[in-house]
C-alpha cells in the first residue's frame, strides 16, 4: 500500500499466525476476484487514520464573521492539509484559556477543498442575475473592471461608487477593507456607517453612556451571582471564543443564569437555570414590567440612581426637559394612564406575570448581577429602545462599575474597547457622504434624493444614485439583505447599478448577480493576523500554509492589480508584499495593545500561533466613573447615565424615538391587522452549522445541522405537520418551501428559520433552501437606520408533494 506506518505493522492486535492462515486461504479465492487490492487499500485508508504529517502548523482559524477567534493546529502533508486539531496549550485556565475551535473550524477542510471553489475570473454572459458566466483571463477581467470604474466615476462621480458591507473574509488583506483602500486612493466612494450585526445597539448605547465600551472583561463574569442572558446565545454563535466557557465558570462559582429568548437555545440548554420564552419584539414590555416591580416594591438602587443618573424621575430631569415624562412616570403610567404592570406585560410578552415579578425581584436583589444583551433583540423594528431598556435596568439596579456587574448595551470590553479587528489602513475617504449600511438599496433607487431623513451623514444630500458596486467577501447584497425578491429585482436592472464586481471563493447568490466575479483565495492560502473579535487579548498569527489554487488571488492582490490599472499601485501597496504588510500590522499591535509581542520572524518560528496576555485582573467598565462621577464624568450631555436622553428628546419623534425606553408595538406584529393573514412570527437565528452564509456548502456541517424551519409542536399538530415534512412559509414578500423540525423548544406562534441559507429560487420563484430574507422587510429602524430583519410575520402550511 506504500504509506508510512508508524507503529505495529498489522493493526488492531491481529495475530500474525491467524493472519497468515486466513490470508493464504483467502488468497486463492481472491485471485479470481482480483479487485481485492483496491478494496483493501480503500479500507486501509479509511481504517488506519494516523497520518504522518510533513509539518504541523499552528494558525488562526480563517477569520469569518462568527465571533470566534480560535487557534487551529494544521497537519500538512504533501502540500495539503490533512487534519485539523485545535489549541493544545497546557494550562487552559480562565486567565489564559485555550482557544478551542468550534464545529466550523474543525470542519474547515470541507470548505477549503470544496469542489465548487471558484478558480478563474468570470465575466457575465446572460442577463444579470441569471448566473451565466464565461471564463476570462485576469487581464481581460481586470481591464474591464478598471475601465468601468473609470467610466462610471467620470459619468456619475465618486459618490456613485460603493464598496458594500461584507464580512465573509475579515482579515487585514482579505476582505472589504482592501477595496476601501483602493477607492480612497482614486477619489473615494460612498461610505457607510454601522452594520447588519449591531446597527441599533451600537447607535443606541452611547445615548445612555456616551460610549460603547460598557462591558467588563470576560474574566470578570465569574464574579457575577446572577446572569441574565437576554437574547444572547454565545454557545452557538460563539460570541467570542470561550464566552460560554467563562459562563460555565460563573455557574460553577454559584451564579444563577436565566435565558430570555423566544427559543431554548443551545446556550439555554447548557447554561441556564431557567429559560423564559419571550414573544419576539416585546422585550421592552418585559423590561418595563420589571422596572414596575422594582419601583413599586422599592427594590431598585435608589442611591445609585440619584448619584449617577438623570431622567429617572421628576427630581432629576435635564435642563430644557423639566416637564417631560420621566422614566418613572412612564412605568407607573402617571402620564399615559397605563401602569406597566406584570399583568399588562403578560398579555404582550406571553410570560406569566408571576414569572415577571419573580424575575424582577431576583435581578434586583441578587448582587452583583449581569444583564447581557445579545443582538437578536435589537435587530428588530424598534431595536434601539430595547437596547436602552436593558441599559436602564442595569442602571436601576446599580450593577455598573462593579465586578460581576454589567452596564449592558454594546458591551465592548473595558477599558480600551477591545480589539482593533483589522489595522490594514484604508486611509481617509475623500467622499464625505455616508449612508447607513442597510439603506444601500435606497441609494440605488433614489440616492440623489437621500438626505438626513434617510440617515445620510457627512453631506446634506447625496449627489447620485449608486451606479457601481465593488463587493469583496460579501453575500450581503442578495443573500443577507432583507427582502431578497425586491433586491433581486433592483439589481437585475442594469440601468440602475451599471456595473457590479464581486470577489468570492464560491458562486454565492450575490456572486450570481455580478458582472465580473473574481476568485479569491482563502485565509489558509495567504498571510493574516488578528487580535480578536469584540473581545481579544491575544494576537493570533495566520501564516500562509497552502499555495493559491487555480488562478485565485488574495483580495489585496486583486485590488493591487486594479490599482495598477488606475495608476495608484505604489500608493496602494506602499511597496509591501503581503507578508510585509502583516509584519507592518504586527508593529501596530506592538505599538498599541501588545508591547511585548514578538516580531514576525520569531512569532512564525515559534509555531505557537498565538501570543496571549493572561488576564488576571479583568478591567471593569465605568469603575472610575463610579468612584468619582464628577471627575470621571461620562461623555453624555449631562455627564451621567442618561435614563432620559435630552438628545433623543430633541429629535422630536416621541412615538418611535422615545427619550426613555418604551414599548412600541412593531409595524409587523401579532397585534396588527397583518396577523390575520400571517399569524406566525418568524425569527432567523445564527445557526451553529454556518457563519451567516459562510459554510453553507460544507457537507459535514449540513449533516450536523441541516437547514430546517423549527416549529412548535402545538402549532405543528394544529397544521397537521410532522417533523421532516416539507413546509411552505410565506408572506407578501415571498415563499419558501423547506423541511421542518417539530420541537417544544420554541414559543408557540413563533417559527425559526436559521439565517444564512443560500437563496435558491425554483422556476416558480419559491426558495428551496430556506433563506429567511425571502420573508424579511427592507424597512429600517427609526434611530440607527438599521436592519429590522427579525420583525417578520408569515404563515406556514404543510407543502403539497412538490
Amino acid at each position, binding site marked *: 500500500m506504500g504509506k508510512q506506518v508508524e507503529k505495529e505493522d498489522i493493526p488492531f492486535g491481529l495475530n500474525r499466525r491467524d493472519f497468515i492462515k*486466513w490470508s493464504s*486461504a*483467502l488468497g486463492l*479465492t*481472491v485471485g479470481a*476476484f482480483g*479487485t*481485492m487490492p483496491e*478494496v483493501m487499500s480503500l479500507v486501509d485508508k479509511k481504517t488506519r487514520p494516523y497520518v504522518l504529517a510533513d509539518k504541523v502548523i499552528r494558525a488562526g482559524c480563517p477569520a469569518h464573521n462568527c465571533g470566534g477567534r480560535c487557534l487551529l493546529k494544521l497537519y500538512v502533508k504533501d502540500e495539503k492539509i490533512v487534519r485539523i486539531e485545535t489549541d493544545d496549550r497546557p494550562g487552559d485556565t480562565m486567565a489564559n484559556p485555550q482557544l478551542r475551535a468550534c464545529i466550523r473550524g474543525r470542519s474547515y477542510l470541507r470548505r477549503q477543498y470544496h469542489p465548487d471553489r471558484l478558480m478563474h475570473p468570470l465575466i457575465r454572459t446572460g442577463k444579470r442575475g441569471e448566473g451565466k458566466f464565461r471564463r476570462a483571463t485576469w487581464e481581460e477581467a481586470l481591464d474591464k473592471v478598471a475601465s468601468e470604474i473609470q467610466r462610471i466615476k467620470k459619468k456619475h462621480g465618486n459618490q456613485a461608487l460603493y464598496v458594500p458591507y461584507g464580512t465573509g473574509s475579515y482579515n487585514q488583506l482579505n476582505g472589504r477593507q482592501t477595496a476601501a483602500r483602493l477607492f480612497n486612493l482614486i477619489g473615494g466612494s460612498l461610505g457607510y456607517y454601522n452594520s447588519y450585526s449591531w446597527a441599533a445597539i451600537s447607535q443606541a448605547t452611547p445615548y445612555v453612556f456616551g460610549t460603547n465600551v460598557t462591558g467588563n472583561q470576560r474574566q470578570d463574569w465569574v464574579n457575577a451571582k446572577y446572569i441574565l442572558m437576554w437574547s444572547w446565545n454565545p454557545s452557538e454563535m460563539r460570541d467570542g471564543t470561550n464566552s460560554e466557557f467563562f459562563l460555565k465558570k460563573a455557574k460553577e462559582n454559584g451564579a444563577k443564569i436565566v435565558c430570555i429568548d423566544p427559543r431554548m437555545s443551545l446556550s439555554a440548554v447548557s447554561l441556564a437555570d431557567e429559560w423564559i420564552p419571550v414573544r419576539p419584539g416585546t422585550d421592552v414590555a418585559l423590561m418595563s414590567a420589571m422596572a414596575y416591580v422594582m419601583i413599586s416594591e422599592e427594590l431598585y438602587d435608589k442611591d445609585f440612581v440619584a448619584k449617577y443618573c438623570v431622567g429617572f424621575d421628576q427630581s432629576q430631569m435635564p435642563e430644557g426637559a423639566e416637564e417631560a415624562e420621566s422614566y418613572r412616570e412612564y412605568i407607573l403610567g402617571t402620564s399615559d394612564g397605563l401602569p406597566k404592570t406584570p399583568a399588562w406585560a403578560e398579555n404582550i410578552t406571553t410570560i406569566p406575570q408571576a414569572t415577571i415579578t419573580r424575575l424582577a425581584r431576583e435581578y434586583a436583589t441578587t448582587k452583583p448581577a449581569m444583564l447581557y444583551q445579545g443582538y437578536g433583540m435589537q435587530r428588530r423594528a424598534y431595536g434601539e429602545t430595547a437596547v436602552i431598556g436593558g441599559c436602564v435596568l442595569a442602571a436601576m439596579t446599580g450593577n455598573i462599575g462593579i465586578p460581576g456587574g454589567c452596564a449592558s448595551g454594546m458591551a465592548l470590553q473595558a477599558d480600551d474597547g477591545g480589539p482593533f479587528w483589522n489595522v490594514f489602513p484604508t486611509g481617509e475617504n475623500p467622499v464625505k457622504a455616508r449612508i447607513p449600511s442597510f439603506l444601500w438599496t435606497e441609494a440605488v433607487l433614489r440616492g440623489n434624493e437621500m438626505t438626513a431623513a434617510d440617515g445620510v451623514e457627512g453631506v446634506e444630500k447625496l449627489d447620485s444614485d449608486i451606479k457601481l458596486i465593488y463587493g469583496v467577501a460579501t453575500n450581503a447584497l442578495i443573500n443577507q439583505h432583507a427582502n431578497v425578491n425586491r433586491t433581486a429585482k433592483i439589481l437585475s436592472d442594469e440601468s440602475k447599478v451599471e456595473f457590479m464586481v464581486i470577489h468570492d471563493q464560491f458562486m454565492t447568490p450575490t456572486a450570481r448577480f455580478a458582472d465580473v466575479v473574481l476568485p479569491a483565495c482563502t485565509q489558509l492560502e495567504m498571510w493574516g493576523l488578528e487580535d480578536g473579535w469584540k473581545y481579544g487579548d491575544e494576537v493570533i498569527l495566520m501564516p500562509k500554509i497552502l499555495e493559491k489554487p487555480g488562478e485565485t488571488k488574495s483580495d489585496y492582490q486583486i485590488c493591487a492589480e486594479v490599482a495598477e490599472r488606475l495608476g495608484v499601485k505604489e500608493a496602494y501597496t506602499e511597496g509591501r508584499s503581503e507578508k510585509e504588510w502583516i509584519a507592518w500590522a504586527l508593529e501596530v499591535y506592538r505599538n498599541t495593545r501588545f508591547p511585548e509581542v514578538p516580531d514576525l520572524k520569531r512569532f512564525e518560528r515559534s509555531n505557537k500561533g498565538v501570543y496571549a496576555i493572561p488576564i488576571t485582573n479583568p478591567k471593569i467598565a465605568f469603575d472610575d466613573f463610579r468612584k468619582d462621577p464628577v471627575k470621571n464624568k461620562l461623555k453624555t450631555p449631562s455627564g451621567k447615565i442618561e435614563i432620559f436622553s435630552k438628545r433623543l428628546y430633541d429629535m422630536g419623534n416621541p412615538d418611535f424615538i422615545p427619550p426613555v425606553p418604551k414599548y412600541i408595538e412593531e409595524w409587523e406584529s401579532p397585534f396588527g391587522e397583518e396577523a390575520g393573514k400571517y399569524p406566525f412570527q418568524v425569527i432567523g437565528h445564527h445557526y451553529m452549522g454556518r457563519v451567516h452564509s459562510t459554510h453553507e456548502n460544507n457537507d459535514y456541517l449540513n449533516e450536523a445541522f441541516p437547514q430546517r424551519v423549527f416549529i412548535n409542536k402545538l402549532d405543528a399538530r394544529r397544521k397537521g405537520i410532522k417533523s421532516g415534512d416539507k413546509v411552505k412559509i410565506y408572506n407578501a414578500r415571498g415563499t419558501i418551501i423547506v423541511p421542518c423540525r417539530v420541537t417544544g423548544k420554541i414559543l408557540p406562534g413563533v417559527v425559526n428559520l436559521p439565517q444564512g441559507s443560500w437563496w435558491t429560487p425554483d422556476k416558480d420563484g419559491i426558495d428551496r433552501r430556506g433563506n429567511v430574507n425571502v420573508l424579511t422587510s427592507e424597512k429600517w429602524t427609526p434611530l440607527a437606520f438599521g436592519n429590522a430583519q427579525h420583525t417578520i410575520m408569515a404563515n406556514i402550511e404543510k407543502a403539497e408533494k412538490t
Partner: protein
Amino acid sequence: MHEWSLIVFTILTQIAVGAFVVATIAQLAKGIFHGEKVLHTLYPLLLLVAVAALTTSFLHLGSPLNAWYAMNNFGSSWLSREILFVSLFTGGLALLTVLTFRPAGWRRSYKLLAIAISLLGVVAIFSMAKIYMLPTVPVWNSTFTLVQFFFTTIILGGALTAIFIPAVNKTEKAIFVNLLLVLVLASIMVWVGNTLLLAEGGLSATKSLQVLVAENSVLFYGRIVLLAFVVMVILLPWFRRKMPETISFFTMLFVMLLIAEVAGRYLFYASYVRTGV
C-alpha cells in the same frame, strides 16, 4: 432495502430444509417415494433452491469477499452457527443428490444420511431464528420468531413436497393436506399473537407495531386474508368429499402460501426497530 436478499435467503433456505425434511419423513414413514424418479426431480430442485439461497445471502453483505471468515465465531455467534449449518445442510444435500443419481439408486443406507441432513437443516433453521432473537429488537425477541420460522419451513416445505407426491397415494395426500390446514391455522394465530404481544411492549415495540399495522396495513391484513383464503381452498374439496389430486391444485396452493410467507417475511424485516439509540 438491503433486506430483500435476506428475505429471499431465509425463505428459500426454509423451503429447501422444509421440503427435504417432509420428504424424508414421508419417505421413511410411508415409503412414498418408491419411485426414485421423483427424487431425481425433487432433490436437484431443492439443491438448486439451497444454492440459490446461499448465493443470495452474499448480496446483503457489504464485503462478501471476506465471507470465508464467517464461521469463525461459532463459539458465541448464532450467525456463525447458522452459516455453518446451512453450509453443511447444503453440502449434505448435494452429496445425497449425487448419490441418488448413481445407477444403484436409493439405498437403505441413504436413510441415515437423509436423517442426518434433516437434522442439520433443523438446527440451521433454529440457528437462523436465534440470530434475530436479540434483546435489542423487541419485535423479533420472542419465541414467536422461532415458531414462525419453523412454521414457514414446514408449511412451504410441505406444500412444495405435496406437488411431488404421486397421484396414487390418495390417503397420504389427504394426510398432507390436513396437516397443512392445521399448520396454516396455527400460523395465523401465532402471527396475530405476536402482534398483540407487541402492543404491551415499550416504545420500540410500539414503533414496530405501527410499522406493521399502520404503515403496511395492506400487506399485514392482506396476508391474513390470503391465508384464510388458503384455508377455505383446502376445506372446499373436503366438503365435496373429493380429495384434491391434481398437480396444478397443489402448485396453486404452494404459490399462494409462498406469497403469504414472502409478505410475512417482508413485514418481519420492515418492522425492525432497535431499542436504545
